[in-house]
């Protein structure tokens, strides 16, 4: 199963607050589910740890970019003034190291910042204007005041419990955790295409 396919949500639940979301996730984890993802309007404290997502390694990219930018800038300045076209400027030495520093620093910062922004976007899987989850009714509140949890199709525990009874159990568990809605998105159907059969059951 491809990465995208295995990440495709099979089960999604909507909560009204961060804490509630965390409870719901605990419930799912209780039933052995591991391939979880959450969608929140803002960072919910403890969420990342609960889902076992490691801290971002993006810093290393940024460091590399900074070194490249700064080093490149200094080298260029050195080459211009010492190698390519040395000129006597006010009796200053060709290799005027102190004078080269400001630009070196600025270029380091520039490259680093650009790297930070771009990697944040790319690593976050963006730009991606369409995503399966957008097809879900009411998901648009995920950026406002709703907190969603999703179980990926690739979840190892899923096959074991994915039957009528299992679904009922999990739904009730989530309901107990305070889920407003629980959606089962039929796995049999083709992924990545709008208009799934939406087998909904009332949590209450």
């Amino acid at each position, binding site marked *: 199963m491809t990465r995208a396919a295995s990440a495709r949500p099979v089960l999604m639940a909507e909560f009204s607050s961060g804490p509630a979301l965390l409870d719901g996730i605990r419930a799912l984890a209780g039933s052995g589910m591991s391939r979880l993802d959450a969608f929140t309007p803002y960072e919910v404290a403890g969420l990342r740890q609960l889902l076992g997502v490691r801290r971002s390694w993006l810093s290393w990219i940024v460091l590399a970019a900074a070194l490249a930018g700064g080093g490149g800038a200094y080298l260029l300045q050195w080459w211009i003034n010492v190698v390519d076209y040395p000129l006597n*400027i006010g*009796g*200053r030495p060709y290799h005027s190291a102190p004078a080269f520093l400001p630009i070196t620093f600025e270029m380091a910062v520039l490259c680093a910042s650009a790297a930070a922004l771009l990697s944040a976007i790319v690593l976050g899987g963006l730009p991606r204007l369409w995503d399966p989850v957008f097809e879900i009714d009411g998901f648009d509140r995920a950026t406002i005041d709703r907190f969603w949890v999703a179980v990926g199709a690739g979840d190892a525990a899923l096959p074991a419990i994915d039957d009528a009874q299992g679904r009922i159990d999990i739904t009730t568990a989530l309901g107990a955790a305070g889920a407003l809605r629980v959606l089962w998105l039929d796995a049999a159907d083709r992924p990545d295409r709008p208009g799934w059969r939406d087998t909904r059951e009332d949590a209450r």
Partner: protein
Amino acid sequence: MSAMSHDHPHEHPGPGPGDDDDGGEPGGLDRLSRRALFKLAGAGAAAAGLAACSSRPAREILPYAGQPPEVTPGIPLHYATALVEDGFATGLLVASREGRPVKVEGNPDHPASLGATRAIDQAAVLSLFDPQRARAVTERGVPAAWPAIERMLADATARGGAGLHLVLEPTSSPLVIELVGRLRAALPAAGVTFWSPFTPRSSIAGNRLALGRPLQTQLDFRAADVIVALDADLVGDHPMASAYARQIADRRRVVDGGSAMNRLYAIEAGYTPTGVMADHRMRVRGSQIARIAAELLAELQRGGVPAPAAAGRFAQLTAPPDRARWIAAIARDLARVPGRSVVAAGERQPPAVHATVAAINALLGNAGRTVGYTAPVVFEAGGPSHDLANLVRAIDRHEGDGGGVTTLLILGGNPVYTAPADLAVADAISRVDRSLYLGLYDNETARACRFMVPGLHELEQWGAARAYDGTITPLQPLIEPLFGGRGVADVLHQLLGDPPASPRDRLVQAWPRAVPGADLEAALVRGAVANTALPGVTAALAWDTLAPALAAAAVMPAEPAQADGGATLELDIRPHPFVHDGRYTNNPWLLELPEPTTKLTWDNAAQLSPATAARLGVGDGDVIALTIPGTGGAASRTLAIPAILVPGHADGAITLQTGFGRDGGEDIARGIGGNAFRLWTTTAGFHPAARAVALGEHRALAIAQVEASTGDRPIVLSGTLHALGGEAFRDELAGHRGAQPSLYPAFEARGPQWAMSIDLTTCNGCSACVMACAAENNTPVVGKRQVQNRRQMHWLRIDRYIGRYPGGTTGAGIDAASDATAVVQPMLCQHCERAPCEYVCPVEATSHSPDGLNEMTYNRCIGTRFCSNNCPYKVRRFNWFDYKDHRSLRVLGKNPDVTVRDRGVMEKCTYCVQRIRRTEIDARVADRPIGPEEVQTACQQACPTRAITFGSLTDPQAPVVEHRHRPHSYAVLHDQGTVPRTQYLARIRNPNPALDGTADGAAGDRHGGHG
């Protein structure tokens, strides 16, 4: 910006003589003048360099049809010719590029030049290419035909000259003199008057009084140890100014404390270059000079100078207390060196003064040694024919009998403007039926006359004239008459009915008669005929005429200041150093050149001392009305003119310079300044009782320097010759030069190391160098408003600082500020080895060459002006607007070796790098080394006193090296660590111990003084 700019920015096509689009504006390169040029010189490759620094060169190459053998495109030719002013010739060498005169230099073989030039000479090229010159024969302003004038002349001749009157400029030309002679013979009834306001009159009359004959005074300062200038601007306003300045300076060059140095006393009203140079300066009103001369004579006699009995009765004459000490000291100084001094009086002084001075020189034994007398160089000088009143009288006779003047020919000059106010010349002319004016411009006189005939500029003429000392000087044209003008001789020949001939042939024919035994070709090459100076004549004092003159001189003038609360002042009128009597007022170079001692540009103003100004309650630019009472029933005349304060000016007097307030047809000259001639009378150069009233209005003046104090900063160092002998001053000076600790490694120096040394002792601020720089380097003129915005473009400026030293300047006025003394300092790019301007330029537009030049690469400059901010000498100039006037005729006078800068570009002195590179290339091509004095900068070449030295520090023969080793060589702002390549020789004065306030002047002077 288009991608093209990666290569070189292309903006507008660079028009030039080689370019085919016509300047639309009047005075542009219209076809006519252009074709004339091509005939003379296919301006060919010279188009390069004319266009701006960011535009394409002309796309065409126009080779000669028939190339003159001597011409090689790209290599300048020099022709010897001369400028003539008030009848006296100054020899010049004019550089010609592909037939276009582009630069004027002095002629070393000419006595009035000695290789130097005045600012006026340098500007001649611009006058030649002045688009506003008269272009066609006109009658009452509408184009007319020459034949009409021929008929008029023929008619006048037919009547044997009856009713014919000619007005010529005073002339020394053997050719013209011969023609006038023939004319008088052929047409006895014709009248001839010579007129020019400032040609020597008084001195000749004075010599007649003293020596019984009209004689012209010739001075020789080479052997003069003491010089007393009585209201005489010997180095500024004199036909021999350049030569005299050189002679005086040669005796003032200081090598060390032990040098022999002459002593110069200046006694004058306004501040002049001579006053700047002087060791002692007394500021007195012009009318006091006569008395002072007499006092000096008397003091000399008391001092035991042998004098005939006739002069005996002067012995009692004593000077008033405030100057007695001075007179005594000067007299003793003079008596100390019998036969080795010069006492000179200015032309503005009445004959009596000149007579007194002649007597003094005779008694001191100077006559025949340092002071000589020759027959006047100018034809009939001092004679009745030089009185403009003749003309008016002749015309007025009209009313009486049937005689009078029916045909008036004014050949040159501008009498309507320059005539003394007490002569109503203009309306006299208007009463003449057929009047003709021959001249360069449609000026006041041209407008008063019926016919206007375009004249010839000196650089368009064949002819000859005499220098002040009489040396015959040939004139030859550099270019065909741009507007088909005619010379004075042409008209005279026409009158005499001579068969038509080319001016050159006429010269060839007349030459043997004029200068027997002299080869014309040789003379044209040399620019002067050797040994043609007039012989000196020895004449004994004629006491019968001298005595009354002395008596007249001895009269103590009234103190006008006391009359009525100081509203009555003495009015001194003198020619402007640059526009003279108004003949050069349409030359923008000369207008924008700051007046040497007031720093005023684009204007003339009423110069007065701070004390007097305070009495009148005026400051710089406050307008005052000057009124002089009418004489003999004539109405009084008033001139409203702004004031300018001149520290060192005599109290109770006002100095006005002539040449402004023009209202002829010249657009540039018209309407600037006030016309001093309106207050001028033939009687004397000064009017004892002019009323001055502050009008309460203000007229902004364009003064090129506002702050006059050095604030005690190490800028101009000066001291006495005596002090230079002592340690204190030497140590102080040594602290302003030499190596300084630096963090930076030394740069390897390849080739010669160019450097300059400027001697502040011999510089008198005449500003010839500034003009030479402008002419050589195509620096633009920006106009009065932009000067007021402090945007003048001179690469080289003369800073004038006001200091006060013991005995520097003194006068009756006790006011300290007024007693201040001026020092001048040429300031140009110092070519610092650690140039602050270079390291702040973001685009390498200014950098350092291996031979020590601070290079300015115009085409790389983007105009951040950061370099100017960081230049402690503020010598960088910026093109605030687009100043390249490609459409104007003036473009032809530009130097093709120097880029014409574009808008938004920084520029500055380059040590004339184009000359350096040219010499380098010539030397390389000839596989020879560069000579020690081979490279001359334009300023150096022009300097009359040789104050500027330039050369390579690596060449032991180069004088600049020796200058560097003198004890008083120093670097300006040495404390800033810029290591300038330009160094100065401190200003050394040689004061009379009897007048020097300090005990022994052990240390240098201080300039903190007056602000």
